[in-house]
């Protein structure tokens, strides 16, 4: 018997215990956010592959970096004193975790595509229960109706897709059943229609 739970607390608990109904759209939004977040985080393998694709990469430089990392690892464990010969390794690998191969790009590695603006994954959800197919078209995919088909959640749930768009302003729409362009009811309407139909505006901020 729970002594805390008298009649008043029982009534309070019951008033607060009402479970919200199942919401397919909310679940769909969560799954889209999870997928977008996953797409945004490059794996360690991807980082290594990107680094190796840099023109500055060579087997010799990789060996030098590994050796420098080892020296720094020994240094951080107190294996060596403050010998001047370690200064170059220390300054070269500044910002790297000591004793670990430098997978995460830091000051020593050429910044991967640092002059380019990276595209950001953006989850989109569209409710069209009677549609047989929905495709996202927009300036971020060249208005190509084959590039971003949406996937339906369940048999009559909302349609979802994740698009990659660079930071800035974008215009897009949903192509329903291959014939009808529909603006996204969740987004502001585009005024500068350059393709003759309803469209919406997507503002993407840098990650």
């Amino acid at each position, binding site marked *: 018997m729970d002594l*805390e739970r008298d009649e008043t607390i029982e009534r309070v608990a019951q*008033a*607060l215990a009402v*479970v919200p109904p199942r919401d397919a759209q*909310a679940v769909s939004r969560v799954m889209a956010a999870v997928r977008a977040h996953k797409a945004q985080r490059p794996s360690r393998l991807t980082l290594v592959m990107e680094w190796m694709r840099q023109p500055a990469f060579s087997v010799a430089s990789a060996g030098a970096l590994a050796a420098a990392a080892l020296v720094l690892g020994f240094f951080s464990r107190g294996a060596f004193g403050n010998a001047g010969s370690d200064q170059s390794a220390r300054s070269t690998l500044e910002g790297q975790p000591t004793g670990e191969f430098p997978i995460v790009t830091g000051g020593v590695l050429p910044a991967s595509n640092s002059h380019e603006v990276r595209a950001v994954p953006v989850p989109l959800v569209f409710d069209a229960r009677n549609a047989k197919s929905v495709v996202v078209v927009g300036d971020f995919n060249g208005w190509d109706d084959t590039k971003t088909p949406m996937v339906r959640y369940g048999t009559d749930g909302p349609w979802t897709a994740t698009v990659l768009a660079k930071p800035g302003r974008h215009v897009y729409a949903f192509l329903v059943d291959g014939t009808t362009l529909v603006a996204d009811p969740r987004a502001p309407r585009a005024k500068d229609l350059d393709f003759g139909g309803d469209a919406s505006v997507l503002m993407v901020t840098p990650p």
Partner: protein
Amino acid sequence: MTEIDPSVPLRAQRGDEQAFLEIVEFYYPRCLRFARNMMGNEQDAEEAVQDAFVRVHDSFHRFREDARFDPWLFRILANRCRTLLGRAKRHRELIEYGEVQLAIASAASPIEIEEEFGADWAEEVRLVLETLPPEQREAFLLRHVEDLSYEDIAVITGAGLSALRMRVKRACDTLRIRLTEVEKRNGS
């Protein structure tokens, strides 16, 4: 409410997206209930729940196979609620500093509570609940609404058992006193 089949989180941990979808479908309503009661605001509650699931997906490698999933999920969710409450508090302080009426600013999306006991009672409960310090509100909700054991609540909040019992007791005392006053005032 029963817990999900323990094999589902393990499948999700191994990268099975269908299993993760099952988790979201199973827990979303209950998580939203907790977040609504904690935040007092629908929009913040939905944000907290979505963020929590993103973090669950991100941190699955840290979930121990022999652990129970419910306390682990609610620990992440409670952390998100605390973070967002802190942000909301800072936002509120800014509004108050600007001499805008707080009641107007915060009344944008009232929580809908089904009316088994009448809308007035549910509304009074919600208003009194909002006056509780967040750590008391959290402990009360986990104990008496989510029906979790003190041991589970200790895992979720990181607080000791005696501190948690004290928080729940104080929350119950405040709710009893204030709601009794409300009922006397309303003549019921």
